[in-house]
């Protein structure tokens, strides 16, 4: 079983994450935690000093964190993006696609199940954050830059 999962090179960020409110009100924190109702775009002016953003999933069915993650990545956030809370193995793949690169679930995950979940789909239909080529790009390689 695995309690913490990281897809980043090097050490995971260790500093405690503060709330969005206290983060935007002070200047020295480098880790922040976003709750479902909070606007990830409030963090955009501060991305270069952030090493870790935790996105909390109090309940697996609340999908706002997927949008938060993508928004941060679309705006160039390079730091660690960690999904925490009610994170289940069947969601890891979609979370990876939205830009999460570490996971700290409430309940430890089965390593083999994580492995299967991440390698299940050889192809994807959408362009997302993970750099995978969608099938439409594979179908028309001459149209895709680079």
């Amino acid at each position, binding site marked *: 079983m695995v309690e913490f999962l990281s897809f980043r090179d090097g050490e995971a960020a260790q500093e405690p994450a503060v709330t969005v409110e206290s983060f935007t009100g002070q200047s020295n924190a480098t880790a922040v935690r976003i709750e479902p109702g909070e606007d990830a775009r409030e963090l955009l002016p501060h991305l270069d000093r952030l090493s870790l953003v935790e996105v909390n999933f109090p309940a697996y069915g609340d*999908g706002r964190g997927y*949008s938060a993650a993508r928004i941060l990545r679309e705006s160039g956030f390079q730091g660690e993006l960690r999904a925490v809370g009610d994170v289940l193995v069947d969601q890891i793949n979609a979370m990876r696609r939205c830009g999460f690169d570490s996971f700290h679930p409430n309940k430890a995950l089965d390593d083999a199940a994580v492995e299967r979940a991440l390698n299940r789909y050889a192809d994807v*239909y*959408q362009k997302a954050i993970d750099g995978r080529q969608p099938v439409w790009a594979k179908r028309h390689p001459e149209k*895709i830059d680079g």
Partner: protein
Amino acid sequence: MYRYDSYDQSIVDARVEEFRDQVQRRLTGALTEDQFKPLRLMNGLYLQLHAYMLRVAIPYGTLSGKQMRKLGEIAAKYDKGYGHFTTRQNLQYNWIKLADAPDILAELATVEMHAIQTSGNCIRNISSDQYAGVSADEVADPRPWAELLRQWSSFHPEFTYLPRKFKIAVIASDDDRAAMRLHDIGLKLVSKDGVIGAEVYAGGGMGRTPMVAPLIRDFVAEEEIVSYLEACLRVYNRYGRRDNKYKARIKILVHEIGVEEYKRQVEEEFAHMRELGLNPPTEELDRIRAFFANPAYETGLSEDVDRTDPAFALWVDRQVTAHKAPGYAIVNISLKPLTGIPGDASAEQIELVASLAEQYSLDELRVTHAQNLVLPHVRKADLYAIWQKLEEAGLAEANLDLITDIIACPGLDYCALANARSIPLAQKIAQRFADAERQAELGELKLKISGCINACGHHHAGHIGILGVDRKGVENFQLLLGGSGAQDASLGQITGPGFSEDGVVDAIEKVTDIYLAERTDGERFLDTYRRIGMKPFKEAIYG
């Protein structure tokens, strides 16, 4: 028709294996029911009153003969020999064993079918016009767009845990045969300066707070439709209500913040997202479009139909619709026999229709949101042979759009959410109005029954609608008048206090009597209602 390439097939095959793994984990106890429920729902597997129910996606309602045959085989092999066509052009099996579900999906995958996202708080099967590609009045075939969106929405990483389910319809005619404006998002293809794009409507829906979707953009070009819809969905995913499941559909968000504010937010997000390279190249839509090119219609065909058999002539007049190609016709097959169950078809009937599609309809058929079937490319010369075979199979009812062509949800006979039974009521109404001349006299009259407020039977959109409710443990039925799911979309109004099952049948008879007495030349029931209003009907009912 669209055919999978190796990418499509590999994704669907992977889904079968993923679900097999999930079912295995459930059966061994590694997943609790709470954890398993959203996973099974996202694959169309419900736990209903009597058993598990599996909803199979029929993308934009189009099927080949081979696919239809497979649906019949599954009904015979894994279910109790029948299936139920739904108001979203899908098919449901009522008696599925959990342990069989992965094998069923594997069988579906062999004919390029699946149950992906036929339930759950995600983007559901994309629906469309059952006459797409064959009606003369469309600006383009909407199905290539629907297929593009099927692919885009399948396993969308950001939009799989939305506040609530999300339904999209695509049409391309002024006649709306898909209840487009009663969808979370409706697209209507239009031509602007010779370029095809989409009008976008958002925030429609039925359920407990029915709304007709307002227009939010008058043109989105095909090369930007994906990024535009990503923007619509992202605003909804972030700001749709999650505190109350009854207020979680996009219609409530659009209503609460106002259509102008929703538009503003979508435009702002769209300005951002259109720069991210999310849109497939136009070559991709061209690639899909090639699958929907006109089939090789024969030329020089006769337009004549031998009408000497009066029963056949009656059926032709009611069930056959004009096709865009000379010598061809569109055949509507009624799944509303007067004593039957709306939308149900036996394994044998499914097999017969599959064969008819192969033999007479260029291997293609359609499912309609009114729970009927369509053979879209029939030579007029073959109509009589088709009718004879339908007649033998109990599928030759001539009641398209008449009062006995009733939309009915499964209701309390099958559905765990229902409050009242829809099907027995539909049968009583059909029997009361069984007389063919009487039905014809009443003309177009869309009667729609839902067994609960979730409105799967589209009761808000019925010229006459019926809503089943639970009154202290007893089934009770409210009557609505004046709804429409067509291009003149409107929401029905409740007449007043509800009725017993027999009482509501009597009330409908009084309502139709008022119509017959009050109508002027050429007026449909709906037109008369709109002209004279609720009052005369109410007086007749409650007197």
